């Protein structure tokens, strides 16, 4: 038993973090910067990370890259294409379709989804507006065509990976929101002192960090389990991770809004962009508490 990341995994995480830091949006205005998005798209495409699974990457490695992209609010597709690649290796420019819409679809041409032992593909239509300002949904256009078959076990594995990937995005989003709030608490002054020096503010941020640490621990196990545990056990681990990470991320993002005060409730503050991304990742492949109907490992 040794649940530390390997040296290679840490290098992958660091590379993903650098890319996100360099080209992710640093302010709300950057969300409309087409030049930046084009450079980001080119850089992400060049990494090959959208095909992590068909390149043999484990669930742990997928989770690390997705987490860093969530932390850096990366606003070109990754999570959707990674899941599409796992479902239909080799499908070009593909993301996933869920509940009648293409997800994480900016610049994607087709959307794939599992249905009753088959993998179906649909053409991606125009982008739509939703809660998430960084990852866009799109309409589906035309007929769904079968492009592959899927065993029950493969379908459960894919669902598990989807829960792990969205949990990783939630963890990254929470880390980004927390860092934003801590930085602000160190510079914003009231009554002649930084607001972070007041226990009322500091304790919210301390709680947030504990929630993030718990999320890391629960997610790491679920991400490992994708490839290493029997399908039903891996799915159980992923459900637990998703529930924990979703609640933690929402709480941490709400704290980030609160710590920013009035500014935190304005469009120009990145806190709501992170909160919105957390809401979207919680809602994509949701887990209900009632699904935790069995005991401990």
């Amino acid at each position: 038993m040794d649940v530390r990341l390997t040296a290679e995994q840490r290098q992958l995480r660091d590379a993903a973090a650098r890319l996100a830091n360099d080209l992710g949006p640093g302010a709300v205005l950057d969300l409309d910067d087409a030049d930046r998005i084009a450079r980001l798209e080119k850089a992400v495409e060049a990494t090959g990370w959208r095909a992590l699974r068909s390149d043999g990457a484990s669930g742990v490695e997928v989770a690390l890259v997705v987490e860093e992209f969530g932390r850096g609010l990366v606003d070109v597709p990754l999570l959707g294409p990674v899941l599409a690649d796992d479902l239909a290796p080799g499908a070009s420019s593909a993301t996933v379709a869920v509940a009648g819409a293409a997800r994480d679809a900016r610049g994607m041409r087709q959307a794939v989804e599992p249905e009753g032992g088959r993998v179906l593909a649909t053409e991606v239509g125009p982008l739509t507006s939703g809660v998430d300002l960084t990852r866009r949904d799109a309409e589906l256009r035309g007929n769904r065509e079968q492009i592959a078959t899927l065993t029950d076990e493969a379908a459960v594995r894919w669902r598990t990976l989807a829960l792990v990937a969205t949990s990783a995005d939630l963890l990254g989003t929470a880390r980004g929101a927390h860092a934003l709030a801590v930085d602000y608490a160190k510079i914003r002054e009231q009554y002649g002192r930084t607001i972070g020096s007041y226990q009322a503010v500091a304790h919210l941020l301390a709680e947030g960090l504990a929630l993030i640490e718990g999320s890391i621990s629960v997610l790491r196990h679920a991400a490992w389990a994708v490839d290493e545990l029997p399908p039903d056990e891996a799915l159980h681990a992923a459900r637990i991770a998703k529930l924990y990470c979703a609640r933690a991320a929402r709480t941490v993002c709400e704290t980030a809004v609160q710590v920013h005060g009035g500014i935190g409730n304005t469009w120009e503050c990145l806190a709501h962009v992170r909160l919105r991304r957390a809401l979207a990742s919680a809602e994509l492949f949701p887990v209900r508490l009632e699904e935790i109907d069995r005991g401990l490992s």
Partner: protein
Amino acid sequence: MDFRDSPEEAAFRDRLRGWLTEQAGAFPTSGDEYWARQGDWHRALHAAGFFGLSWPKAYGGHELPPVYDVILDEELARAGAPARPSLGYLVQGLGRHGSEELRRRFLPGMIDGTERWCQGFSEPGAGSDLASLTTSATRDGDTYVLHGHKIWTSYSDVADWCLLLARTDPDAPRHKGISAFIVAMDQPGIEQRPLKMMSGVTKEFGQVVLDGATVPADQMVGAPGEGWALAMTVVGHEREPSTLGFTARYGKLVRELLARTDGTPPPELSWAIVETEMLRLHVRRRLSEQLDGVSHGPEGSLDKLLMTWTEQTVGHAALAVGGTGDPDLLHAYLYSRAQSVMGGTSQIQKNIVAARILGLGA
């Protein structure tokens, strides 16, 4: 990275599981009966080779990697056995600050359970602000004479020894005038006053009044004035679920609650499952990180917060499943309220995280 047992770990787990099957029902797991028999449980665990797993062989440990404690806690929970005795923090305090002579004299009995220990830190006037303690130790020839009042002293009534903090230099700055001693509990000048907790338990906590009790000068741990450093070592470890072994308690209770539930569990119990799994996996991560030589720092306060939220979520699940009519479950709920106070309140933990990890100083 591997969450699975290595072949050696799996063999250890099998051996432990077999032994726990033989012990089923032999030791009470809660209430005053648990505290009354805790010493027997400690000695039985040690005699079978399942206690002090990561501690030095020279003192009665097994020098196994830290993750073996995870296996122990997981199997105790699965078997419904009592949790392991929580005295790792005292072992760390004496091990790190005591002389080799004191370690050789006292650690073996502490680890094998033949000598029982308590911790004399808190006082009625010194709780969160531990450095304001006023118990005095005055040098008189080869001994120190003690006067003061200790409280929240777990197992003081059965303890042979107390790791005690007292002020040896009233004129020094308050953190610097404190020294640590190993005090014999069975002597004139020590009065025991039991404390009944809100759960009804009477055997866990005590108060200790020191009125002229003595301690040989060579039973000071570390140098004069080193008491605060020892205290920080002890409370640092006292915050870590990996040291305390409480995850076994939560896992056991969640299993019992599930066994009493038909159909879909109430939401409180589902959350308790999620939190308990989180903490179990968190301890695995923390103990794995110790392989890198990660030292014990303010991160222990994060772990304490996670442990507290878990215990109190499990406490709410106990209420949801059993209501107030089940004495054992009501006890588990009431006991859970202490977790955000003992070993440093949640408010103190958040102060530590904010100041020392997040850098949110004044």
